[in-house]
């Protein structure tokens, strides 16, 4: 049988009381926030003063502002644990997850700026339309496994072969890497370049030990891997610490080199295959 939570004299349950006690003991301060307000790309920074408590992240502060000062503030969020990738924004000019950015890590004497991502069309306040990414994903060749290794329709693979692509599976699709990539952000090559997120996705498929599809020609042509000039900004902002440039993009670039820019290597491969026969 369910029992009612224990309450204290003020009618609070034990959890809320403990939380209130903890908050009272924690360090309080008033911080200034400049939040981008507006619709469809037009808008301005609006400054808010907000009481914050030790341990708060930027998303907590934005929620407090939404609850107490700006009820119509649009912000996308979900898990508050850095795993859903919903609360991507630009904090003090750098793409970050609001739920994973502690206020204690930001300069206390200056306003915290919070803007929507710049590489995607602005909807309202801190919300952008990231649907372009989902359309891009559909254009990458899907996983095509080889014929099953066993009569029961299952495959066998070695852990050491799958380790390399395991890293790419950590991606939470927050699109911060897409946002910081200057090819999309500044040059708006959305028609010609799939961006770091989908190069990681392509790498996860292309390097998979069971996969048989050849994505290299598409990577060079339709997916525009040559646009990447290896600034490593994507790696820098990845909240999952995926080594995007070194482990995904550059190995894919090297596969493009194998196919299109290394005639000697290609001859050696053809010759060694013949020799084996």
């Amino acid at each position: 049988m369910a029992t009612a939570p224990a309450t204290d004299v003020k009618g609070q349950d034990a959890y809320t009381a403990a939380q209130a006690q903890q908050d009272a003991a924690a360090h309080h301060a008033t911080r200034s926030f400049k939040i981008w307000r507006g619709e469809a790309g037009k808008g301005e920074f609006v400054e808010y003063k907000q009481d914050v408590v030790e341990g708060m992240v930027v998303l907590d502060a934005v929620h407090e502002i939404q609850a107490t000062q700006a009820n119509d503030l649009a912000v996308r969020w979900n898990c508050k644990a850095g795993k859903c990738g919903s609360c991507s924004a630009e904090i003090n000019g750098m793409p970050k997850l609001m739920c994973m950015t502690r206020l204690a890590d930001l300069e206390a004497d200056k306003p915290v700026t919070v803007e929507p991502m710049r590489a995607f069309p602005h909807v309202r306040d801190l919300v952008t339309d990231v649907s372009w990414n989902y359309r891009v994903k559909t254009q990458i060749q899907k996983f095509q496994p080889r014929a099953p290794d066993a009569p029961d329709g299952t495959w066998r693979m070695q852990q050491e072969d799958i380790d390399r692509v395991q890293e790419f599976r950590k991606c939470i699709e927050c699109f911060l890497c897409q946002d910081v990539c200057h090819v999309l952000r500044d040059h708006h090559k959305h028609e010609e370049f799939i961006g770091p997120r989908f190069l990681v996705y392509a790498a996860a498929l292309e390097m998979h030990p069971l996969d048989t599809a050849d994505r290299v020609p598409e990577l060079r042509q339709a997916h525009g891997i040559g646009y990447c000039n290896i600034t490593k900004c994507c790696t820098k902002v990845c909240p999952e610490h995926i080594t995007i440039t070194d482990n995904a993009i550059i190995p894919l670039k090297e596969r493009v080199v194998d196919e299109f820019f290394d005639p000697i290597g290609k001859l050696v491969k053809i010759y060694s295959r013949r020799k084996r026969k």
Partner: protein
Amino acid sequence: MSHAPLPLIHRGFGETQRRDAWWLQPLVVFTILGGFVVYATWAAFQNAHYTFGPYLSPFYSPELWGDPRTAWFGAKPGWWPGLLPFSPALIILPFPGLFRVTCYYYRGAYYKAFWADPPSCAVGEPRKSYWGERTFPLIVQNIHRYFMYVALLFLIFLAHDVWKALWFDDGAGGKHFGIGVGTLVLALNVVLLTCYTLGCHSLRHVVGGFLDQLSRHPVRKKAYDCSSCLNRWHMKWAWMSLIGVAFADLYVRMCSMGIWHDWRIL
């Protein structure tokens, strides 16, 4: 990708909300890399003070043509253009130079520092047009692996120079074993260059990275793992080896000019 055009706003050059010193890293890269290019060019044109005792400056190694007493093929080659001043380093330096120019790490660094493309992450750029490495001239960066093969060859020559730097003239026409500070400088240079070259992204790919089932090739797997291990520090090796090779040349030059004294340890 076919979809509706995106109504995005262009940002101006240097436009950013970043508050950190985002300009510092490109400035440091510009200064060190620019300084190295100026020094290496100056040193290459000197055609003097590149040897001291058993030491040979890495900028001039291997000495294919040059001093007839020590060069592999004698003095200045007949095909050398008359208008261009001759120096053994001018034949050598382009190869390691192009290895570094096309290096994946340096590309990202100098695109930022010298071309502001972008000046730094999330900072507005000076120009709207962008070709990337899809078309000429930057598509040429794709031949990096050929320069890597040459760089591997150079490691052998430089290691041989360290061996030669262990044998000093005894004044009676013979050689005896010894170790000078210069020996250690040249040895450190080879170690740093080896760590930089063996951690190269292209080498990592050609030794095993191109395979999806490395477990079937244990030797390649070991080579790939070793290269990956060094690759994690590629940026650091790149800078340390750059400074190391410049210092090795400077050391030999200063000793040869009599400005620095080469201390003998053994």
